[in-house]
């Protein structure tokens, strides 16, 4: 199966501080994947690398069969940022105006939006359960409603790959349930792939196809059953599963550590297929 996203041997650091040591993974159409990890381990940085906002120090990233270029457009990719709520909150716009901006590519440069574009925007709002909120100012919306507006802005363009940075933060359980149902239907019915950064381990175990854990600069796929136990264990010890971390990271050190954790081998080959899903 052709992968929508391929990350191969990516390394990245801010100045002298190395953040991502060895990150390799691939996502196939229709997969619903989560990335977990403690605060500050580089989850949002990983998304910024995928979006071309940062350039990896080493390694390659291919999105929809094209190499990611720094600062370039990403047609076919939808992104809902972690601080998405703050961007929209306080901005004087209606839900329909926000969702219409997601149709930028199909409307075209300089051209104004037409009636059919407005109809598409309202349809996207209906999909996220906000059919009656098209003319509602975003300033008077709750956190959950705003998050759904941002998701509608992404969905209206029918992306093949969705990148979501903690999309359930600040929204109630019912709204989160609705969001998960919607994302699940997207992956199953439209073959959209979803990569979601999350802290909700319980939901990750229930809802996601695969879960990656990013800690200490390495990304490993975690067995969903032992997700919580392994993470708790990790946080109690200065190393990984009691094994002290190597002073310098290299391929050899990485492979030495990962099996000792009792986890599957690091996902360091893009040749990995999604037969397990």
């Amino acid at each position, binding site marked *: 199966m052709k992968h929508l996203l391929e990350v191969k041997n990516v390394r990245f650091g801010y100045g002298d501080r190395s953040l991502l040591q060895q990150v390799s993974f691939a996502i196939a159409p229709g997969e619903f994947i989560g990335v977990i990890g403690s605060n500050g381990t580089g989850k949002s940085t990983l998304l910024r690398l995928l*979006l071309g*906002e940062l350039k990896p120090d080493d390694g390659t990233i291919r999105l929809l069969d094209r190499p990611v270029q720094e*600062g370039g*457009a*990403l*047609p076919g*990719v939808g*992104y809902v*940022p972690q601080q*998405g709520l703050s*961007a*929209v909150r306080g*901005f*004087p*716009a*209606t839900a329909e*105006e*926000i969702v*219409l*901006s*997601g149709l*930028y*590519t199909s*409307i075209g*440069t*300089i051209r*104004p*939006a037409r009636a059919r574009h407005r109809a598409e925007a309202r349809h996207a709002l209906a999909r996220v359960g906000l059919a009656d909120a098209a*003319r509602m*100012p975003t300033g008077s919306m709750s956190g959950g409603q705003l998050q759904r507006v941002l998701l509608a*802005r992404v969905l209206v*363009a029918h992306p093949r790959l969705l990148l979501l940075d903690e999309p359930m933060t600040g929204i109630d359980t019912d709204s989160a349930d609705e969001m998960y149902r919607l994302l699940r239907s997207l992956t199953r019915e439209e073959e959209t792939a979803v990569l979601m950064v999350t802290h909700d381990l319980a939901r990750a175990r229930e809802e996601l196809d695969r879960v990656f854990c990013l800690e200490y600069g390495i990304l490993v796929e975690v067995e969903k059953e032992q997700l919580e136990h392994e993470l708790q264990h990790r946080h109690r010890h200065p190393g990984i599963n009691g094994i002290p971390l190597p002073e310098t990271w290299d391929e050899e050190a990485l492979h030495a550590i990962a099996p000792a954790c009792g986890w599957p081998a690091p996902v360091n080959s893009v040749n990995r297929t999604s037969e397990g899903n």
Partner: protein
Amino acid sequence: MDIFEFDFMRRAFLVGLLLALIIPCVGVVMVFKRMSMVGDALSHSSLAGVAVGLLFGFNPVLGAIGASLVAAMGIEAIRKRIPRYSEMAIAIVLSAGIGLAGVLSGFVQSAAGFSSFLFGSIVAITDLELGIVVTIATLVLLTFLLLYKELFYIAYDEQAARIAGVPVRAVNTLLTLLTAATVSIAARTVGALVVSSLMVVPAACAMTVAKSYRQTVTWSVVFGIFSMLAGLTLSYYARLRPGGTIVLVGIACLLLLQVGVRLAGWIRRRARRGIAVPETAEGGDSVAG
């Protein structure tokens, strides 16, 4: 009306109307990009160009446009280098502009000519200046209308706009250049010290009444035109400086709107409580109204 008997006043109203159309358009986008102070940085930098124009004997408006454009490009260049502290770019260029204008103004022979740019001289517009205002206003208005949705997208989420394919860098550069041109022609007419308030105050007024982005833009232009025309008329009859009067009318509008909105909210709350009384009374409780 005798105010329109004079050619200079007819000209002042035409220039004022054009500026009131374009300044709020640029201002709305700058306010939402959290760059309200850009107007200040550019207008103060334009004074350095005015001084150069007066020193070397060419039209100071052209000098102001040149200095504003250089300042605008300087802001963009610094923003790219330190994106996380982009507001510092404005402060740096503002300081440089004031410093340069201060030093150069010491060499200018005509102090009155230079100070007319501080508070504006809308009633002393030459034919060349009128031509420049008409040209730049047309350019700004056309660009704003054509790039309406691009500017909207960039204003509220620059990152998402870039991912969606909006040429963010090109649009930002164009916007900064047009802002520089707008600010420099406005500095001549309403004054360098007050031009930035014309970018911000109509937007602030509009935000108190508008419920969408489209309405915010429309109301900004309406408030901008009202402040301009009312300010010019008032300054003519009360013999006040036009630039300052225009801004003070805008500030008065903002204060009245704020009071009006709070008053309307208070009346609504009172009305709601008034409706609740009979319902509660029916249940046997007595509630003071």
